[in-house]
């Protein structure tokens, strides 16, 4: 196994593009090292991206945020402005693993691992985040929701890596929230997760909404029907029930050791309702 730690994105792209055999990107390693130790992957090349400065910073740009793909959960949590603008994105990232894992685990890794239960992804999708993809043909931008195509599968081609996430500027009276259900309080994988991002108008009605759910389908889903149920409402009980029903209708989960179809479907409704209420309260307070 060959290990490389390039200093520039172009260098990383070239290494991956030219690799013969199985090549893997190493960010925090919280997924890759587990697979390695279990003998489930045997890479010929591992490209460590943590020495590329651009991938390790959070920058405020054009009224929004640019977050490097190798930024860790702990760094999300310690960034006061990011936390104020995107509390849901930050709380989602901070739910990954445990305190120790937070020091390693990255948002880019969480996205590219393409788990249907990835915690930070629904929050990013709800936020309307895009990411920059660098590859042999140059750079392109893509919506976060379009990256994963199925469990462990992404649109990334040979030599392509996710460089960063771009969070858009925030209109006034906007906030987001992420909730997940696990049997424990930490060190677990979402049975269901729900990210809700809202903008309220001056009367407190929901002007805009984006909602995404995880662990209820082969990939994290943006569910427009849930958002539609909230938009134009005061996010009252009636709207929340419609949103919950839309969330349940969108579920295509599986039965496994972590949850049943029936349970996941019910919980999707519960979490959408609760996350929407938290986002509403945050948006109202933030005005």
């Amino acid at each position, binding site marked *: 196994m060959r290990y490389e730690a390039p200093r520039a994105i172009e260098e990383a792209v070239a290494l991956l593009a030219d690799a013969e055999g199985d090549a893997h990107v190493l960010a925090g390693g919280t997924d890759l090292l587990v697979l390695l130790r279990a003998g489930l992957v045997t890479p010929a090349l591992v490209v460590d991206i943590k020495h590329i400065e651009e991938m390790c910073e959070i920058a405020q740009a054009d009224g929004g945020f640019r977050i490097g793909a190798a930024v860790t959960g702990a760094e999300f949590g310690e960034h006061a402005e990011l936390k104020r603008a995107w509390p849901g994105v930050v709380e989602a990232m901070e739910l990954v693993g445990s305190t120790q894992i937070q020091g390693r685990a990255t948002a880019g890794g969480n996205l590219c691992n393409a788990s249907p239960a990835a915690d930070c992804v629904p929050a990013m999708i709800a936020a309307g985040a895009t990411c920059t993809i660098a590859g042999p043909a140059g750079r392109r931008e893509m919506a976060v929701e379009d990256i994963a195509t199925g469990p462990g599968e992404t649109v990334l081609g040979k030599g392509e890596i996710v460089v960063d996430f771009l969070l858009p500027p925030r209109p006034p009276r906007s906030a987001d929230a992420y909730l997940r259900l696990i049997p*424990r309080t930490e060190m677990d994988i979402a049975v269901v997760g729900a990210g809700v991002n809202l903008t309220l108008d001056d009367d407190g009605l929901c002007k805009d909404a984006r909602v995404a759910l995880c662990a209820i389908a082969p990939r994290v889903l943006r569910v427009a029907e849930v958002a539609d149920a909230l938009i134009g409402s005061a996010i009252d009980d009636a709207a929340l029930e419609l949103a919950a029903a839309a969330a349940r209708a969108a579920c295509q989960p599986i039965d496994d050791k972590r949850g049943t179809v029936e349970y996941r479907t019910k919980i999707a409704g519960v979490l959408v309702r609760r996350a929407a209420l938290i986002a509403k309260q945050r948006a109202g307070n933030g005005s």
Partner: protein
Amino acid sequence: MDIEAPSYKWVGTRPVRPDGIDKVTGRAMFGADFSLPDMLTGKILRSPHPHARLVSIDVSKAAALRGVKAVATAADIPEIPVDNAFVGDAPTNFRHWSSNVLAREKVLYDGHAVAAVAATSPAIADAALALIEVDYEVLPHVIDVKDAMRDDAPVLHDDLFTAGVEPKPDKPSNVAKRVEFTLGNTEAGFAEADVVVERAFRTKAVHQGYIEPHAVIANTAEDGQSQVWCPSQGHFMIRAACAKLLGIEISQFRVFPAEIGGGFGGKINPYLEPVALLLSRKSGRPVKMVMTRAEVFRATGPTSGAALTVKIGALKDGRIAAAEATLTFEAGAFPGSPVGAGCMTGFAPYDITNVKIVGYDVVSNRPKCCAYRAPGAPIAAYGIESVLDEIAQRLDLDPIDFRLKNAAKEGTKAAYGPQFGKIGCIETLTAAKDHPHYGAPLGPNQGRGVAAGFWFNFAGQASAAVNVNEDGTAIVTYGNPDIGGTRASMAQIAAEVLGIDYDKIRPIVADTSSIGFNDITAGSKTTFTAGLAVHEAAKDVVGQLRERAAKMWDISVDAVVWENGVARPASSNAGDFDPLALADIAAMAGKTGGPISGHASLAATGAGPTFAAHICDVEVDQDTGRITVVRYTAVQDAGRAIHPSYVEGQMQGGVVQGIGWALNEEYIYGSDGRLQNPGFLDYRIPVASDLPMIDTVIVEVPNPNHPYGVRGVGEVPIVPPMAAVTNAVASATGVRMTELPMSPPRLLAALENGS
């Protein structure tokens, strides 16, 4: 008669444990921390099938791989015949353990060891395992205990005929044993009862969940002498097992106790040790083996899953008229579930005239079950204490008052045979009732449950030595691995007897060749039994100190007393001498008879049984079925707490394991008979943030059979929690959960069914 508590200088205090700093700094040497020059890595090939005949095992390609120094299968160890399966009257069936350590003829569970290799690197060992060719004839398998009892179930052992039934069955089955305990006449009792509740319950197999995986290093020299370093709950047991399984004499090897990162019953039996010793003997090199977490889950522990029915009848005034239970326990691949102990303990907290308990020990295609903290008792208590709660509710009685009305006391005849001596059941229940927790207000969606528990506690054999050093300090040597802080307790006991300071005494756990025999660290017995040996050895030292002082003063030894760490003349008649401290006498030892060294080897009896009463508050999320334990208080009779902090630690640890058992822990098998959750991600023991601080109350009803009144404390705290949590959930929701674990999907389904 109340005896005034004696005043002790060291017993009952909370000094820092001698092994504490090494453990918190990471310096302590656990099993995987040892290494030797030229060491090989040993690894095990495990069956992917839950049940299959081993048609052939071809190791030739693995053995030929460069770097492979030894390969082993069951063919390399002697087959132990049926009539030689046991050693003395101990319950361990070594014929079964031999087949568990390396499968012979059949594999009986996913993860069953088939072959082992030792190689010069882990990568070569892995490559060698991949080169071993095993021809399996896959057989139908059975996982669930109820399915395993069916007439058409696949039979695991052709030579297993149900014991304890008359006449002896004419065909083999998976039911290894039936046991029964009766007292009085339950039929007559139920006829008198005003209320009768009968319920069926299920619990899942759970693992002990120790953090340290099994690990061993074995080294054999050219003369055949071997050394083994490993964590275990008894290095003398590891020695006995290796000798029996490999057919070698005990004098040929020596076992050194590594620090142990948790056992809870799961490190009583051999897994890797005989294999590492075998590979070392074959290769002539040191061999180190460390299990992965997945191996720990697939092939060690767990305790039984179970099906049980409980029927209890009571009179309007709250007296229990009759009680019956049937317990059916999974034994795993070989007989030996703790169903007997489950039967004996379940009703033991109560004085009941009419009792009948029947137990079944049933094999199925799961790892061989192993002891787990009060083996069997938590499962029985779960069903019984749940039904008692329901009866109290029906009779509109306070659940603690109801238990107090029926509580066992001195003179009560337990259904399992003995008549209790001095016990603390009533005192424990009363302390729970008086605790501020019991009357504290509850919030919305919260409920409170109580449950009681019993454990026998064991005694057994121990050896100890107390050696006085030239400078007046002392070394206490004993032979039980220190799992729960016993080094501190041994030093406190020696300090109390000798009258010198705790920090003048260094306790060590000696290897098998450096001290007399000791039984395992299990059965809540080490502080009791090893403590008795240390007490006797220290008294032996005091006798010698008096003799030396008598010699130095040239008076009769009867005229010398030992008080507060000094020798004094018994009275002014004996003469006028300045007191001699231990250090003064130690300095003169060479001139007064040589080294001062006290010894004791004994077989203790009279371990006092112990009782626990727990109070649990939960909060239930009605929309998701998630349960949060918000407050928990454990009350327990310790007889006398030598080191209260470590008693409290045992209580808290037992409670936490019981909460895990109640809420989320379970072995999950697929229809292919393979374990689906062999890791801590999906085998959910509670994490710290899941739990409130566990409050503890130590009740002290001294055990009259011990100089300080010690009772065992390590096991009983895991007995009540499953029922206490279940009763709290019933109080919060009105729904009584009869299946564990009460994971969120199960509870939500039950809430919606209103069952």
